[in-house]
Each structure stands twice: as C-alpha cells, then as structure tokens.
C-alpha cells in the first residue's frame, strides 16, 4: 500500500517536473556546415538528456543516426537526411525523444530487415512531428513502444509492387500510440497495426497506396476518427479485433475487382458511425463479425453498399442512408442474425399512410440478382436486362431465394440529414 502511494506522488509531480525551465530547455547544440559540429550523430553523442540538437539546412548523408537519449532533434527549414538507398535514416531507442522538421529521403530496402525512415524501438513517449519522408521503404516504424505521437508527417513512396514496398506507418506490439494528421501515399499499406492497443488514429489521409489504406490485426480498443482513405488498390481491411471505434471517416473510390471500402473480418463489439462510403465496389464487407453497431453512416454510389456474410451475427444497422447503390445489401445464405432498422433506402417503394415518416411495409434490401451473381458471376451478362428486372420484382413481392427475414421493418420515407 505504501509503495502504491509513493508511485502516485511521483506520477502527479511529473508534469511539474518537466515544466521547470532548466530541465525542459537543456542546452542547444547546433549542427551545420558552418558550425563546429558537422555530423548529427556526433552532436547526439555529445548531448545529454533534455538537450536540443538543432540542425541547419543542408544535405546530410549519415548512416542510420541512432538516438538513445531524451533529446529534441530538430531541423531548421527541413535539412535533408539521405539514406542513399542503403540505410535506415533515424533509429530511436529512447524515452521522451522528439524528431521534428526533417526531410528524409531514399531509405534502403532489404528482403531480410525492415528498413525505414524513422525507426522507433522499445521506446516511450517518442514524438515524430512535421517531417517530410520521400521515397521511403517503411515510413515510420514502431515496435514495442508506448505513448508515442506521430503527427503531421508527409510520407510518400513510389512503390511499384506490394511485395517490394513497405508500410507508411507501421506499428507492431505497441500501446497508446497517437497518429494524427499524417499524409501517406504510395506505400504497401498506408497504416499498419499489429498488436497495437488503446491507440488513436485521427485526421490522417491515406491515399493511393498499393494495398490497403489501413490494415490492422489484433489491435483492440483503438479509435479512428476523421481519416480519409481514398483510391487504395484494395481499400481498407481490418481483422481479428474487438472494440474498435470508427467515426466520421471517409472511404472513397476503392473501385476494382478486389477492392473494398472496408473489409471487416472477425471484428467484434465495435462501433462504426458517421462514416462516408462513396463509390466503392463494396462499401462494407463483413465476415465473421459480431455485435457491431453501424449507425448514421452514408452509403452512396457503391456497387454493393454492404455485403454481409451469413457468418455475422447480432450486428445492428440503424439510421443509415443508402442512396444510389447498385445493390444495397448482399449476402450468401438464408440465415439472418442481424438487424436492420430505421434506415433510409432510396429504392424503397412502400407507402406511409399515417404520415409518421416510417414506411408501412418492410423493405427487403437483398435483390435476387445480387444473390445470383454471388453464386454465378457469369450472370453479369444479364445485368439490367428485362428478365432480371422481372425476376427481381417478383422476388420482392414473394421472397423465395432471398432471405425473407433480412428486412427493414421501419424504413424511413425521407433521407436522414447526416
């Protein structure tokens, strides 16, 4: 008991401790062509905890700068750190280190090791902020780290194939990471999480990557807010995770034979709300998902708005807008364990006699033809032909092939103002 109180006192006094001017400032060690020190690594070796290494503009070709102290490594006007297509650029194994304001280019690439621009291993409270990463293999690479902040970095690669490129922001076995306001393009996966918990991904733009905009596995209790995932080869895929929270993200223009707005595989107990799914081949693809609440999302102009496999259960779709999708819901079986309530469907043809804004007849969002195509893709040839429309209409009136219970009992007459 006594020891616990002791720890509390130390924790509470930490902020006070850091705010003391002498400690936080330290001394400043300048590096540059015209300065006494010309090598960043030398300056770091000379620095003590709490110091700042200030790097002048210029081109620095150093092999893998190693930071093992609590220092601030800061660039003035984006000094260029060049990896010469051979090396990693900065490796951090420290607590309370800051990497700020550099332009890092041309990292090496290896089949055996993961080589990246900013490598953070076994660290605590490291910050990488406002850097420009150009032609990186991995951009920012975190491993076994806690409470790190990756913010406002511009990460660009020019990968040609999935196999020969790394991830923009790659995190493995970490906790309480914040990834905020980064722009990532041209990597294999924009953001990659494996065993990363209690983290926040906020306001990032992950655009035109070779595989997924974001890809995570076993990363529980994470929150994703206001990110943009656009035009990635395969959209977004997330797997084997519980308790994720996704709010107000944009999943746009993931159009292709194997592209998804978002693919949810074995995701449970999660909350997906206020997201926009626009112009994707498949807006959401769900497989083995349980207890997800999907509400107030917008599905617009997708091929399939939602494809929900029969292996999903207890998912709730409420108050979403479905507009302009070719197919609203697709499924592969007759078992339905999910609920759809109070959504707006632009294909709804029912009526509302008592004028309470809720349609009086249920809406069946699964069209027969979408099930035919699912079994037999060649049936594409008959898309929008008269026979298919007739079959669809008769199926709507008297469901035979499509799951009868997959219906919205309370479809809305008017689009929700989302």
């Amino acid at each position: 008991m006594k020891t616990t109180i002791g720890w509390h006192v130390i924790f509470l006094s930490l902020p006070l401790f850091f705010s003391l001017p002498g400690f936080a400032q330290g001394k400043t060690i300048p590096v540059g062509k015209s300065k006494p020190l010309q090598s960043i690594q030398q300056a770091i070796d000379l620095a003590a905890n709490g110091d700042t290494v200030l790097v002048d503009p210029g081109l620095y070709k150093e092999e893998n700068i190693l930071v093992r102290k609590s220092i601030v490594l800061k660039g003035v006007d984006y000094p260029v750190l060049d990896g010469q297509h051979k090396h990693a650029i900065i490796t951090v194994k420290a607590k309370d280190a800051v990497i700020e304001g550099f332009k890092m280019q041309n990292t090496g690439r290896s089949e055996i090791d993961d080589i990246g621009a900013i490598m953070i291993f076994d660290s605590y409270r490291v910050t990488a902020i406002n850097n420009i990463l150009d032609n990186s293999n991995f951009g920012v690479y975190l491993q076994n780290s806690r409470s790190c902040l990756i913010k406002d970095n511009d990460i660009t690669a020019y990968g040609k194939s999935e196999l020969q490129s790394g991830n923009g922001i790659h995190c493995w076995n970490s906790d309480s990471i914040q990834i905020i306001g980064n722009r990532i393009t041209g990597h294999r996966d924009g953001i990659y999480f494996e065993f990363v918990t209690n983290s926040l991904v906020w306001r990032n733009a992950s655009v035109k990557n070779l595989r997924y905009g974001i890809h995570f596995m076993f990363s529980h209790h994470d929150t994703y807010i206001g990110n943009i995932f656009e035009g990635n080869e395969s959209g977004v895929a997330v797997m084997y995770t519980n308790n994720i929270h996704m709010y107000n993200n944009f999943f746009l223009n993931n159009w292709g034979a194997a592209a998804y707005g978002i693919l949810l595989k074995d995701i449970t107990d999660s909350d997906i709300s206020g997201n926009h799914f626009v112009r994707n081949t498949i807006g959401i693809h769900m497989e083995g998902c349980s207890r997800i609440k999907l509400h107030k999302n917008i599905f617009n102009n997708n091929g399939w708005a939602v494809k929900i496999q029969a292996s999903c259960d207890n998912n709730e779709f409420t108050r979403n807008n479905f507009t302009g999708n070719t197919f609203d819901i697709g499924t592969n079986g007759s078992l339905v364990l999910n609920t759809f309530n109070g959504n707006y469907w632009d294909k709804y043809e029912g009526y509302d006699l008592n004028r309470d804004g809720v349609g009086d007849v249920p809406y069946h969002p699964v069209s027969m033809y979408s099930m035919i195509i699912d079994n037999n893709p060649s049936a594409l040839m008959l898309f929008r032909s008269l026979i298919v429309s007739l079959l669809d209409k008769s199926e709507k009136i008297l469901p035979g092939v499509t799951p009868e219970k997959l219906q919205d009992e309370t479809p809305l007459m008017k689009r929700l103002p989302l």
Partner: protein
Amino acid sequence: MKKILKYVIVDIVQNKIVLIYTFLLLVISLSVFSLENNSAKGMLSLLNIVLIIVPLICAVFSTIYIYNSGEFIVLLVSQPLKRRTIWLSLFFGLATSLCLAFFIGAGIPILLYHADATGFMMIAMGLCLTVVFVSIAMLAAGLARDKAKGIGLSIMLWMYFSLIFDALALFFLFQFQDYPLEKIMTLMSFLNPIDLGRIQILLQMDISALMGYTGAVFREFFGNSLGISLSFLGLSVWAAMPLLISLRRFKKKDL
C-alpha cells in the same frame, strides 16, 4: 430509288403514330432527367426504354407499315423498277424516319443532360437497335403473307430477343455453372443485338468492376476500341442479315 425513299420518309414522318412516338419519347426522357436530381440515375431509367420500348415500337410499327403499304408496293412493282430498289427504299425510309424520331425524342434530351461517353453510347445503341428492329420487322413481313401472322411474328421476335433469349442464357448459365463460361458468354452476347447494346452501355457506365473476374473479361473484350468496333460490326450484321433474307424472299414473292 431517291424518289421512292422521299415518298416513304414523307409519308412516315407525317404518320400520327410516329409523331406520338417521338413526343412520348421526348416527354419520358425529359421527365426522367428532371425528376431525378442525379442525371446518371436518369440514364438508367432511359436504358430500359432504349432496350425495350424502342425495339418493340420499331418492330411493330414497321411490320404494320409494310402490310398497309401493300397496294403501294403492288403499284410500284407494276412500274419499271427493280424489286430490290423498292424493298431497300422501304427499309431505308422506315429506318431513317424512326431514327430521326428516336434522335429527336431521346437523343436531344440525352445530349442536353448527359453529353458524355455514356450518353453518346446510349444514342448510338438506340439508333442501332432501331435499324436492327426495322430490319427484323422486314423479315417478319417478308415471311408471312397474312398480316396478323406477320405482326405476331415480329412481336414474337421482339419477345425472343428481349426476354426469352436472356431467360435461356440464365438457364444455360445455371446448367453449366461449374465451367468457366466468361468467354462463351461473350460470344453468346453476339447472338442478341439487345444484349450487345446493353453490355456496351453498361461498360460505359463503369459497373464492370462490380463483378470481379467476369467483369474484367468483359471489360477487356468489349472495353477497348477493337471490342467496340466488333460489337458495332455485330450490330450491322444484325441489321443486314434479316434484311437480305427478306429481300431474297421479296424478289421471288408472288404478289
């Protein structure tokens, strides 16, 4: 030939049915575009009209017209004119005036609201289908002497191409679904002018990615300029073949 063509065109353009057809198309197209705030959705509704209503009207109207001008044809045959000239003039007259009707009724609204590749493809396919179904109507009229039989035949043919063929294709697909059918389906689509038109328009609407591998096969074949020219070639064969058969019949026909 020019003179007969002129007579036929003037006669058809003044025909009330054709005027109503034009007007109806115009009203439908305009209302479809102005009701939907999204012009792409309007295009989808128009697609059904181009693929179903246009062939039906063309087939039925042309057949009836040919039977009704039976006396006119007999009169022309008594003149020093080749039968070939008479029959082709009738065909070109019908095709030109119905194309004109389609262009005014549906083409102009499409150009006004949706003048892109999809729109142009829709107009081109509408015009092609008009010509093809006039030709099919000539065949029906050439084959059957009796008016009721001829009209019945042309309606049957329309029904075959717009409904029965697709039903058979669907049946075929399910019977042989264990085999890779993509290439065979591509070939099969050439057996039906309506399917050809539909696939070309849909590819312009960029839905092919929806359908995975099949979509890719279709896109690869029909999407490039070779595929587009091939399907136009297919449509011209569809316009020429029934016409030539009926022409041969008409040459030997005892009027």
